[in-house]
């Protein structure tokens, strides 16, 4: 008699579903996932995986990890990254070396796909978690990621 079997199974599965949502209902007081955004601006912490914008971290000596290899520029599907580079004489070794002048990032064109960050061999660029990116003029969205007078951290290229 699969007819009554079906009814039994149907009721059983419906009750299973209701017990799952019922548990959520009872625990919702503690576990509400809603962020009451403008109110909790001070305490709001975005998750690690959130893709806000691409940044280049600098350490306390104003040193970054970008070697100017342009792999991020090549990886970017819509040309959001432009690298202006130059061959300069490295003061330590005295040889001519490729160095970045400006790492230009167009936030307004970025689709947050993350291919540049995957492509970077030296982890020079990472995701930042900020999201309040609105500005009054779109020229503000073009950002230079390396700070002025910054230089490559020693040992990154080795």
């Amino acid at each position, binding site marked *: 008699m699969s007819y009554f079997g079906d*009814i039994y199974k149907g*009721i059983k599965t*419906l009750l299973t*579903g*209701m017990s*799952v*949502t*019922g548990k*959520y*209902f009872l625990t*919702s*007081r503690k*576990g*509400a*996932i*809603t962020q*009451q955004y403008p109110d909790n601006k001070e305490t709001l912490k975005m998750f690690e995986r959130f893709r806000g914008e691409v940044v280049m971290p600098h350490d306390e000596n104003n040193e970054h990890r970008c070697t100017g290899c342009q792999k991020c520029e090549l990886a970017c599907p819509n040309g959001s990254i432009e690298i202006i580079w130059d061959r300069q004489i490295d003061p330590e070794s005295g040889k001519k070396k490729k160095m970045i002048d400006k790492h230009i990032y167009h936030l307004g064109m970025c689709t947050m796909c993350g291919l540049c960050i995957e492509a970077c061999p030296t982890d020079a660029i990472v995701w930042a978690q900020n999201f309040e990116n609105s500005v009054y003029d779109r020229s503000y969205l073009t950002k230079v990621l390396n700070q002025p007078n910054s230089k490559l951290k020693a040992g990154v290229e080795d």
Partner: protein
Amino acid sequence: MNISLNITKTITELLSGFMPEGAANIGAMVTIALIYLAIFAVAGLYLVLLERKVAAWFQLRLGPNRVGPWGLLQTMADALKLVSKELTGTVKADKFLYNLAPYFVIVSSLMALAVFPFTKEFQAFDINIGIFFLIAISSIGVIGILLGGWASNNKFALIGAMRSGVQTISYELSVGLSLLTMVLLTGTLQLSEIVEVQKNGWLIVQGHIPAIIAFMIYMIAGTAETNRAPFDMVEAESELGAGFHTEYSGMKFAYFFLAEFINMFIIAAIATTVFFGGWLSPFGITESIPWLGVFWFIGKTFLLVFLMMWFRWTFPRLRVDQLLTLEWKYLLPLNLLNIILMAVIVWLNLTIQF
């Protein structure tokens, strides 16, 4: 507390002090109608708020909490917004029917409220065919939906309305038959007498197995009657825009919306009266204070409303063919079997009485 709870009689007597009898009768009717209208318009708004809060809690959200304390004034603000909005319409709509449809829906759902005994004697209209009246009235609402869908001259609205016709005609049967199962036990259609019968134990206890089956069928069919998810083929946001009320805006839309929630209240109130003893307290603990019955009635009703909300936020939606399969292949045959079972139980006196 010496207030007479029989409101119709009280108001008629009050008015006949300074009016001729005929005018007093009409005056009492109008007064009661206005009181009911005001109470249930506000109650409907708060049901909307409850729905949104319950939905939020099921989904681990917070729900409306900005307007007023804990968001209590949210739906009031929504209603004010809807009142202030423009009443738009389509050029090719059948204007008369288009404007008539929302009133059919809201009037039929408000009419059903008249017969509920909220507590002993607190009943606007104690008609002796109460259950029959309720079944009849609850199917008038669908005319409003059909009219709204047809007169809008919009294909989505028309599909929604036709689905509503299919759904309501099918599930009427189950609602009627499951209530009929309980009528076998009570032997009366009058709602106040049905509650009297339950002084020996609520009907869901008296009728045990067939009563529980009837209750389950009633709740499924009742949810379908109110066109709520998981049976929301009529609105079907994902397929039909907004279904039958696609072309309605402002207050006319609000009437449809309010009617849906009042219908939900009505379905729960019928279940309360027929299965869970209406205004009777559990084990008769407050039997000496009849006005407390209102709280028991409302409490039980809201538990059942919560159950319907629980259904809505748990179950996936049905397709039209699955909807009809459920009714015609499962609920209807089971219901007929259940009536026989109940008849046998009543015949052999196997009911549980305290």
